[in-house]
């Protein structure tokens, strides 16, 4: 089995559940457009989500077929995206990150302020911040895509598109063109791609 790039998205339950799902689904769909083998799914035990209780969404990207499809979590994430910035303080969101990873945070604060709350910075190569609400002031609450059902509100219409665009720039996991082709609000993704603030460590 070839190398699998693991992406984990953290968010607050209910209020950001759809946006977090959109980030993972958009990145997976964009990579699929580039001919990669992908998975994009929700963490099973975090659902049904409760208001402001952290939830996780996962995407996996690989050049070869993903053989162990049924693992419940991304145990070694390379890319961690925080839709809710406060989670960087209360939870070790970088758990399992091996080295050379990147962290993308939805916040107007600077990468230095975020780094204050990470005691072990060794696994990180880059920290990036993007004020998603500033680019697209829509954090949509919608349950239609939850629990294996089909999203009816549109994938990538709010801050999810912004964070996917930022993640594409910081990590290079997908091209911005593939991402813009799969995201509803392509403009928001493109702006994030250009405006995300990256700090190299």
């Amino acid at each position, binding site marked *: 089995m070839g190398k699998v790039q693991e992406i984990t998205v953290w968010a607050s339950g209910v209020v950001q559940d759809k946006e977090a799902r959109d980030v993972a689904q958009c990145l997976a769909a964009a990579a699929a457009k580039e001919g990669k083998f992908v998975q994009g799914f929700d963490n099973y035990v975090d659902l049904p989500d409760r208001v402001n209780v952290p939830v996780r969404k996962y995407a996996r990207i690989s050049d070869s077929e993903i053989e162990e499809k049924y693992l419940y979590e991304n145990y070694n994430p390379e890319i961690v995206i925080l839709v809710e910035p*406060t989670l960087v303080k209360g*939870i070790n969101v970088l758990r399992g990150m091996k080295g050379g990873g990147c962290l993308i945070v939805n916040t107007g604060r600077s990468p230095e302020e975020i780094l204050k709350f990470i005691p072990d910075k060794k696994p990180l190569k880059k920290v990036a911040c993007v004020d998603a609400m500033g680019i697209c002031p829509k954090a949509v609450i919608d349950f239609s895509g939850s629990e294996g059902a089909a999203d009816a509100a549109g994938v990538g219409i709010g801050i999810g598109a912004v964070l996917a665009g930022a993640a594409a720039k910081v990590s290079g996991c997908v091209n911005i063109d593939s991402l813009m082709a799969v995201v509803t609000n392509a403009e928001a993704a493109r702006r994030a791609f250009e405006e995300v603030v990256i700090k190299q460590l």
Partner: protein
Amino acid sequence: MRDYTVKIPKEKLLPEAGIVKSPLPNSEQPDMITGGWRILRPVIDKEKCTMCKTCWIFCPDGSIEITENEVRVNLKYCKGCGICANVCPVGAIDRVPELDFDDVPVRLEKLF
């Protein structure tokens, strides 16, 4: 007669039928320390506080502690629901972004 017993190593054993003593006095579930979920921290203004105990009564978590001369929030468990700020009759409680504070009352190694 055949021996059908499954040999379960000691470290994998669980209490039978998953039955545990509950509640356990003076104990803590390390997986259930909820302060790490908090996004907005309640800050009580000591000048305004009248020690009326309304916040203590309404806190759904029992995360407000009262002593002789102060009302204090238990930051280890407070989930930041904001009910205390909502019910305080004198407006002594503000909800401030957790990231504004440098101190880290709770940092979970993993979620559950």
